Each structure stands twice: as C-alpha cells, then as structure tokens.
C-alpha cells in the first residue's frame, strides 16, 4: 500500500513558464499554417492570394482562438497542456475531479480574452486566477512521494494545513 501523493498549488512562476511555452507552441503551429497558406496561395492564383492575405490579416484573431482551443482540448483530454506537463502541473476542479468540457472551454476562453486576470493568483490563497474562479478549477503540482524525483519546494507545515477547511 502506497501513501497518496501530496499536492500543492502551483504558483506564479510555474504557471507563467507553462503559459509561455504553450503560447510558443501555438504560435509556431499557427505561423506555420499561415505560411503554408501564403505559399499555396501564391501558386494558386489571385482569388486564393486574396484569401491568404485575409487569413494573414486575421492572424491576430486566429491566434487567440487557436490558443483557447489548444488549451481546452489538452485540459479536457489530459488535464494538462504540454507546457504544464513539462512543469509537472495539472488542472483539476476544486473538488479534485478532472476538468469537464464546459469548464475547460470556459477557462480557455477567459484565459485568452482576459489574460491580466491571471495575476489574481498572486494574491489568492489557493492561487486561483480569475478564470480559475469562474471555471471553479485549481492548478496543482502533484508531489512524488519521498525517495523519487521530488521537486525542491518549500513546504508548509501540516499543522497549519489542518487548521484550514476546504470549503472556504
């Protein structure tokens, strides 16, 4: 019988790094797709070229949408984006269950449309940003039990944890 793995809330630095990595991934693929469209349009003809120019102009709109879809899909399927997986983070609902599709989509859209709200996690006790509050999610870092690859993180004493309730 193994003891359940400890968890802790992910902070600003981890989530920012994961967000930047995910943004770079989305930008890479979206930019590649736009470049391919432009090349194909240059060969195809005048109508396609106009379409490609319009697509490139909509890049500013496509990129956030792609980011939202990318995040929502990964949160729904795996509970984490590739950037979060690299940092060892995971998105769950406040009751500890996996994220549902509506929460994932809502969270993704809010994160893309209102990214400044993510800074609320700095002052929140459970490091919930605005999109976390709305979607009722939290971002956690599962801690591997002692003896394995454990992340060096300052821990809060268990007695202090015991004085708190989960419902607040």
């Amino acid at each position: 019988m193994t003891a359940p793995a400890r968890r802790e809330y992910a902070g600003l630095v981890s989530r920012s790094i994961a967000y930047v990595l995910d943004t770079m991934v989305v930008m890479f693929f979206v930019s590649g797709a736009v470049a391919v469209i432009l090349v194909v349009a240059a060969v195809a003809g005048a109508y396609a070229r106009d379409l490609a120019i319009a697509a490139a102009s909509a890049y500013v709109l496509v990129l956030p949408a792609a980011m939202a879809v990318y995040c929502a899909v990964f949160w729904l399927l795996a509970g984490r984006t590739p950037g979060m997986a690299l940092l060892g983070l995971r998105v769950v609902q406040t009751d500890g269950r996996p994220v549902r599709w509506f929460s994932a989509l809502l969270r993704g859209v809010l994160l893309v449309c209102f990214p400044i709200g993510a800074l609320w996690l700095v002052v929140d006790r459970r490091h919930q940003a605005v999109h976390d509050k709305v979607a009722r999610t939290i971002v956690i870092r599962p801690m591997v039990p002692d003896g394995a690859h454990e992340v060096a993180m300052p821990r809060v004493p268990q007695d202090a944890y015991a004085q708190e309730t989960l419902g607040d």
Partner: protein
Amino acid sequence: MGNHEENSVRPESAEEAGATTAGRIAGQLGRWGDLAVGTAAETEEATLHVFAALRSVVSRRRRAVSDRAVAGATGVRRRITELADRGAAERARGRGLLAAGLDAAVAAVATSPVLEQVVDAQLERVLRPVVGAVLDDIVDMLEREPERIRSLVRSQRTTMVDEVVSRVRSGAAAGDGNVDRLTSRVLHQGPPAPPPSEPQ
C-alpha cells in the same frame, strides 16, 4: 785517717757526680727529643710545601688540559657541522644532477628515431590487428543484438531529459516558493489548505 775522710767525702761527691751525670744525660735526652720534634715539624712543613707545590702544578696542568679539551671539542663540533652541511649540499646537487641526467636520457630515448621505428613496427604488428578484430567483433555483436546499444542510448537520452526537466521543475517550484513568501509577508496571509486529493 785522711783516706777515710776522703772516702767519706767521695761518696757524697760520687752521688753528686751521678746526679749531675744523670741530669746531664736527661738534659741531653731532652735536647735530642726537641731535635727530633723540631726535625719532624720542619719535615712536615717541607712536605706540606712540596704537596702544595705539587697540587698547584697539577691544577695548572689539569686546567690547561681542560681548556685544550674544550677548545678541541668545539673545533670538532664545528667541523662536524661543516661536514654535515657540505654533505647535504652535495646530496642535493647530486639529486639535481641525477634528475637532469634522467630527463635528458628520457628525452633522448623518447625522441630517438630508432625507438620511433620500433614503436611503429610494434603498433603495426600488434595493435592494429587487435583493434581491427575487436571493432569487427563489436560491429558483429551490434548487428546481432542492436537492442543492447539502443537501450543504452535510450536510457542515456532519457536520463538527460529527466535531469533537464527536473532542474526546470525545481527552479520553477523554488520561484513559486519565493513569490509565495513575498506575498504572504506583504498580505499577512497564512498558508492555504492543501489541495483536495483525486477522488477514487
């Protein structure tokens, strides 16, 4: 009659004469005793003078001998020290000469064309066939069992990736901790409740 008187007088004079003679003899004996005592005293004094002179001479001789011995021992000690110093210097010089000679000999041997030819010949004769045979064996073994080297490369790559990921995670976690400490100090917040565990 007159003889009788003479005879009567004679005994008195004889006694006196005897007494005188005895007194003279006693006086003579006393004189001889005094002479003996005086001679003995004189002899004693002379003997004392002689012994004193002898002691003085012996003392002078002994002091002179002692001074010479001390001077000789100091000189011997100084000489021994000089010899020891010279011995140490000669030994150091000998070591330096030996090291220089060895270096020169090694350099001469190492750069000698004859030795180079010998080494080249031995390399051609022994090492190259061995290396070729070993490499052939290794290549054959890898052809037969490629999984061995693949697993080795894979495990090495996995280890490196794990190490990089672990460093990134630990650095990010440390940054989170620092930010948490700063915000809790500014906002006077206590630690949060632990996240809920995953329901079974």
